[in-house]
């Protein structure tokens, strides 16, 4: 592999800042969504995923959670959740989707429910601080192994944040295609877009990747001499025995 083909992995931290006036009703929320910078939309409809990487189930986006929990308007909350889920490819798309839902409400409904002062929706903006991890991967194998061990923000940055800000373009997947790993690229796209918490999406991808390597390992092993295969078999059995004895509480 050419050294120039290496892809550098980056992590991200978000600096959160207040933005605009608080919203107490749906029409005020709508105005904030319409006029807020993309960093505000990003924080409330995308970045929340990074706040719950290890959850069993991804909580709703901030906007739907507020409408359901504070305004107690479950129908509108469901529709907004759906808009975020299906229109989240980019800032322009998600903004249009959210406004479609809110503009479709009759005017009396937009102003019918008031949140108490302490329950107002407070718009926040996320400024990204992108940090080099110092890890450069050269092929799909190195990428899959690196993604398994790095911070969840690495996954989030390359597979969620970058495509969102770049209107669907994903530099990591583009690079994977250039090194011939089309299937892994496809799997990564699917895993990142499955609406799962990051750790579960990452685990699903790794399961696929490791399973897909079995056939290659077997093919490689059949080409090895008999004594090498026997030695490899001994290692596998020894590892298995160690795992069993370690997990035995009586040992």
């Amino acid at each position, binding site marked *: 592999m050419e050294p120039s083909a290496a892809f550098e992995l*980056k*992590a991200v*931290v978000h*600096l*959160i*800042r*207040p933005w605009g006036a608080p919203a107490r009703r749906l029409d005020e929320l709508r105005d904030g969504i319409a006029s807020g910078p993309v960093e505000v939309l990003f924080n409330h409809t995308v970045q929340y995923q990074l*706040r*719950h*990487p*290890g*959850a*069993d189930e991804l*909580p709703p986006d901030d906007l739907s959670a507020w409408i359901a*929990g504070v305004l107690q308007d479950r129908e509108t909350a469901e529709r907004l959740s759906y808009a975020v889920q299906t229109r989240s490819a980019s800032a322009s798309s998600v903004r249009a989707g959210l406004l479609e839902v809110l503009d479709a409400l009759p005017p009396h409904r937009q102003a019918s429910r008031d949140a108490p002062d*302490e*329950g107002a929706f*407070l718009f*926040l903006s996320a*400024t990204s*601080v*992108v*940090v*080099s*991890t*110092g890890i450069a991967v050269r092929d799909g194998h190195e990428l899959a192994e690196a993604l398994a*061990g*790095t*911070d*969840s*923000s*690495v996954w989030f940055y390359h597979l969620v944040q970058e495509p969102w800000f770049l209107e669907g373009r994903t530099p990591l997947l583009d690079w994977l295609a250039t090194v011939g790993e089309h299937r892994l690229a496809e799997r990564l796209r699917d895993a990142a877009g499955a609406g799962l918490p990051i750790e579960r999406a990452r685990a699903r991808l790794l399961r696929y990747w490791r399973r897909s390597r079995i056939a290659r390992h077997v093919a490689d092993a059949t080409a090895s001499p008999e004594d090498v295969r026997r030695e490899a078999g001994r290692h596998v059995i020894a590892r298995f025995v160690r795992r069993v004895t370690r997990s035995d509480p009586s040992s």
Partner: protein
Amino acid sequence: MTLVNVRTDGVPLADGYRAIIGDGPMRALESLARSLRGHRIAMVNSTATGGGVAEILHRLVRLLNELGVPTTWEVMPGDARFYGITKTMHNALHGGPGVLTREDRDYYLEMNRRAAETLALDADLVLVHDPQPAALAGWRRRPGQRWVWRCHIDLSRANPDVLDFVVTGLAHYDAAVFSHVTFVPPLPTPGYLAPPSIDPLSEKNREMEEQEADALLEPLGLPRDTPLVTQVSRFDRLKDPLGVIEAFVLARRQEKAHLVLAGGGAEDDPEGETVLAEIRERAGTRKDISILALPPDAHGLINALQRRSAVVLQKSLREGFALTVSEALWKRRAVVASAVGGIPLQVIHERTGMLVRSIEGCAFQITRLLRDPPLRRKLGGEGREHVRDNFLHPREARDYLALFAHLVGRAA
């Protein structure tokens, strides 16, 4: 002596945190620290002992040095008059009564000017904590430096006159950091949010075997065969201890349980003593309520108490951030708490705990959780992961380093 020497013995903190949050997040923190190589940080506050800020700084300064970012900690000297003035400021910023006279303001500024001459503040990045040393930047800032003010106080109901006095001085800062969005006043400099955090390695939060917890709790004579419902908080009306008793009495009609109200501050706080007396009167002769007035260093006991509890309450009427919630969640406890201040950031309703808005709601959720141990385990498990991801010291260190990297243009 203004420079604080931080303890560095024992296992490196970075190793301890790595074992808890995992290698990936620690490596991300190390990457951020690497991006700041060549920069020095100075922390400044007004005390080396006592209080949450000093507690955090002892850990943070050590961690940053372990990560390769040279960090010092300077304590601003003061005298009785200065501390009297800053106490008034503190109370007024919290929304309490307090007036700063012209002489008070002049003396405060003069003490900051004198401290600016003596403190070692030549670092590239200076992080000033709370209002006492906030005026230092005006006297001491040098070209090329970045100054950040970290406010640990809830300013949402601050006395406007005192707030205006503090905020005017912030024009000399590059940024200000607050614990919660509602605490951010109109500022002459960009304001950022960084929730506070707990230390999973501290005496209050470290792992504790059941036997050790039993030994610590034994002298208290709490029942072993009855689930405990506990609120750990100062004896303060804003923590609504009487509301807690009312909610418990309602829940107790449905399920067997024992209430523990554990707190401190009664000895040196006249109002605390009054509130404690009110609580004792309301609890009367009930055998199913224990009121524990704890000394300020009862960290191990609080740890044991939280771990033994089936349900932990934080039924506050107003809150700053309420880190007691994160402490309980970290111990996998089922939490019932009011939706005020920073609590909703920690308790995601029905996922990491239960948010309530009334005494009846609180009683309902206590009963529900007492009847449903699997639900308690589920909430506790999710709560622990939520705290691991968002409310431990390494995350706070990460937020500061990211802000510094942003300010000095060192991000990738």
